[in-house]
């Protein structure tokens, strides 16, 4: 009996192995996305996937001579409830091995990008991330030593992103704070690649332009509440609390506890918290007028042209307003389709080169292109304030503003 179970297991494993492969179809290009589809990030990735599907639908599921197929892969697992290295690596290998796959949209998390970039680089397979913003992924000299070359074992770029990197958001947020007359800040982060990276950039810029950094602590993203941390922050009397983190790393809870501790300061958070879920979990009344969110690019409701049309269509189709991630998902898929059209052939290297060559994209985010590192040329940062349970546009800052104020005082 037992022996039969053993043999059956082995046979089942072999069958599954055979099941995994299929021959190439010359008329089809397949786009995959690798995003955390289980756990706390599901809401954001739902938006992204909707954006991707809408872009493909808009093109009629066809680009040039090719029929477009889309596969929505999950880089999270049950046991973890968030992205895992294995799942991301497995998705990357799967994409690499499937001869029909010509582009991968994703990942959401910068940490996951570090896992899949070196794998997909071997196939020159185009990666377009709608959300990974850590600077080291693309920009030489700004990340760790050796970045970003360590992610490019064949020496060519295959990773681009439609979202501005953190070296825009972090420092510009500090400039915005000084403009508001902020003198003392307390910096918190969630300890993750994105959150810590952006909080460090923010704190560095603060010191550069004469804002006092009272403290910098990392939170445990699984903690239930932060009352004693807030009592500690309160005793240092900051004008502003910065949190480098996301909705999934307890941004909402942090805001709630901060304001119930009666801390007389404003809260500034980066785009990882730009989601309705952040306001819902913190409570609209709690944040009203006291919480500011930075976001690379313009917010959906202020988009014009193609962006405005997308927002309308999204509302009609889904009955709700899109968040920023939906627009980035849409834009990422748009770039992929454009690259396939420009290349005109079903060849990974040609499509990747075509994407990197895009310098004049007219998309939902406006007119932009990729620079030599594969980063977007968009240099606009939006600051929104939470009012009556919604993100309300407050102002925009651009890189040129920052240059103008940069001279040390």
């Amino acid at each position, binding site marked *: 009996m037992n022996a039969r179970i053993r043999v059956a297991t082995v046979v089942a494993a072999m069958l599954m192995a055979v099941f995994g492969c299929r021959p190439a179809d010359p008329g089809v290009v397949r786009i995959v996305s690798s995003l955390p589809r289980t*756990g*706390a990030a599901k809401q954001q990735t739902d938006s992204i996937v909707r954006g991707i599907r809408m872009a493909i639908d808009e093109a009629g599921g066809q680009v040039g001579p090719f029929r477009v197929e889309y596969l929505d892969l999950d880089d999270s697992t049950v046991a973890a409830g968030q992205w895992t290295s294995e799942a991301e690596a497995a998705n990357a290998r799967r994409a690499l091995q499937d001869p029909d796959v010509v582009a991968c949209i994703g990942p959401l998390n910068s940490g996951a990008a570090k896992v899949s970039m070196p794998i997909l680089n071997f196939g020159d397979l185009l990666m377009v991330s709608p959300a990974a913003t850590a600077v080291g992924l693309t920009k030489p000299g700004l990340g760790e030593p050796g970045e970003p070359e360590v992610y490019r074992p064949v020496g060519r770029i295959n990773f681009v992103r439609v979202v501005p990197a953190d070296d825009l958001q972090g420092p510009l947020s500090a400039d915005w704070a000084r403009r508001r007359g902020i003198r003392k800040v307390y910096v918190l982060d969630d300890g993750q690649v994105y959150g810590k990276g952006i909080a460090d950039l923010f704190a560095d810029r603060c010191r550069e332009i004469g804002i006092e950094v009272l403290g910098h*602590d990392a939170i445990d993203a699984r903690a239930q509440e932060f*009352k*004693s941390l807030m*009592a500690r922050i309160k005793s240092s009397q900051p004008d502003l609390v910065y949190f480098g983190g996301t*909705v999934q790393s307890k941004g*909402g809870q942090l805001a709630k506890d901060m304001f119930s501790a009666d801390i007389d300061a404003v809260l500034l958070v980066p785009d990882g918290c730009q989601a309705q879920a952040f306001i819902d979990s913190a409570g609209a009344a709690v944040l009203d007028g006291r919480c500011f969110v930075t976001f690379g690019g313009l917010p959906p409701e202020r988009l014009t042209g193609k962006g405005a049309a997308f927002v309308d269509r999204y509302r009609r189709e889904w009955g709700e307003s899109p968040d920023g991630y939906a627009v980035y998902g849409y834009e990422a898929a748009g770039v992929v389709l454009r690259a396939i059209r420009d290349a005109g052939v079903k060849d990974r290297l040609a499509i990747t080169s075509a994407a990197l060559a895009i310098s004049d994209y007219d998309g939902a985010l406006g007119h932009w292109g990729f620079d030599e590192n594969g980063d977007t040329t968009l240099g606009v940062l939006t600051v929104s304030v939470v009012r009556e349970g919604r993100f309300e546009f407050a102002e925009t800052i651009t890189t040129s503003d920052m240059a103008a104020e940069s001279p040390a005082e």
Partner: protein
Amino acid sequence: MSALFLLQQCLIGLTNGGLIALVALGYTMVYGVLRFINFAHGDLIMLGACAALGLVAPLGLAATGGPPSLATWLGIVAMVLLCGLFCGGLNVAVDRFVYRPLREAPALAPLVSAIGVSFIFMNIGLAWIGPADRGFPQVVPAASLLPGNGVQFGWKDLLVLVVAMPLIVGTMLLMRTTRLGKAVRAVAQDRTAAALMGIDVDRMVATTFFLAGFLGGAASVIAGLYTNTISYQMGFQNGLYAMTAAVLGGLGSIRGAVAGGFVVGLVRALSTAYAGERWTGAIVFAVLIVVLAFRPEGLLGHRVKEKV
């Protein structure tokens, strides 16, 4: 840092400790009768919190800024009772259908089943409230009861103690003085002997599960009203600290679980205040390891002789 700051942190620690103690009681009571750590307890509380969220509107509760009215207090009492019954009933049902068939099975079988139940609970929670954190209305305001800006002790903190302390004291009295408590303790000491004395063991075990679940349900209401956030993943962290508290105090000991709860709450608050939030998780567990290395039976546990 000042004495006022220390006082503030101790208050936060004690308040948190009350909540942890309530959950820890659930672990220690079940451990007492069945000798296994009920890994699903944290997620049971998560489901209780989902139920509590659903009860906010039907009970006429809403977010307010002012001091809670009599109606609010009555609503909260009703919520504690209803969520307690819900979690207690659920716990009894799980015992009946999952753990009872395993009474004579190898020691680790109930443990793995409990882990399985916790996964099932999490999936139910996921389907119930969705994947993201959900705000829980601020029915009881955070506004401080104390004058001045030095030390903050709000209505919410008061609520935790007002709900938790009577339940904790009540449980201790119930176990110590009533016939029911005596019977449960007899089952905990020796199941076979208790059965020979005419005690219906299955009923006593079910009673224990109900009490543990009831306290968990009350804890879930407090957790909702106190942290104002619930999510389908909240069971893990709640459970982990409470489990630590139960072991620290001495598994199976009611007083130990209560003491352990307050110790864990205080250690957490003080390590966040003086060592930094990033080390809190490590310090709580390091304290546990050190205490157990010197007192294997826990702070208030009994030394048990290994039988040949």
